[in-house]
């Protein structure tokens, strides 16, 4: 059983789900919720060949840890998050959220809040590569602060 707290949350290359599921389930917890985001082969009708994730590494690492801590305080759960940087293939995992908590209601709520917050508060940018050889940065949302509990 590995303690994941010391690991960087921002990782080069695709994430491996098993690496983020090694911690033991707390004896007080009855629910484990996991969300992973993967690269899809189409977007808005275009055939996608892959995705490059660009990051402001220092701020992204800090924000991912801040989100983890905020999720734990807000929902009284254990939270782990990780995000990939670099070029990913179709089907590979770009982001992982792991929530271990008392009951399923707060587990689902915490997992959803955490991925929603990652998407709007972490300085990472998707550059989408198309089968026709083109590439473009996806439109995003102005970066938001992490709401404290």
């Amino acid at each position, binding site marked *: 059983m590995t303690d994941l707290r010391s690991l960087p949350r921002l990782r080069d290359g695709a994430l491996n789900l098993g690496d983020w599921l090694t911690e033991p389930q707390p004896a007080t917890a009855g629910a484990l919720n996991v969300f992973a*985001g993967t690269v899809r082969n189409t977007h808005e009708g275009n055939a996608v060949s892959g995705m490059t994730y660009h990051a402001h590494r220092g*701020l992204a690492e800090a924000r991912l840890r801040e989100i983890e801590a905020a999720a734990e305080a807000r929902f009284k759960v254990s939270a782990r998050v990780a995000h990939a940087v670099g070029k990913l293939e179709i089907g590979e995992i770009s982001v992982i959220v792991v929530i271990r908590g008392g009951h399923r209601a707060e587990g689902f709520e915490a997992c959803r809040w955490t991925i929603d917050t*990652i998407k*709007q508060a972490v300085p990472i940018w*998707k550059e989408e590569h198309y089968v026709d050889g083109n590439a473009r940065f996806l439109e995003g949302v*102005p*970066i938001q*602060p992490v709401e404290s509990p």
Partner: protein
Amino acid sequence: MRVTVECYGASSRWCGSDAITLDLPDGATGNAALDALADRYPDFAARRDCVAIASGDAITSPTAPLFDGDVIALIPPVSAG
């Protein structure tokens, strides 16, 4: 004074470079740096109001003064996940 602007994500396309050096009057703020970039790069001007500024590992207020030698980062709208 001289300030270095690092351009993250699509902002490097809008400004045509990953890093830009700006010469600004002493006491200029982050907003003044954004104004200077908007004057120079029309593609950036169109997105100026959606861009945040980071210094080190934190988002900073665009009204805070900059200092000679500062390095700031442009944080365009994000698409993590």
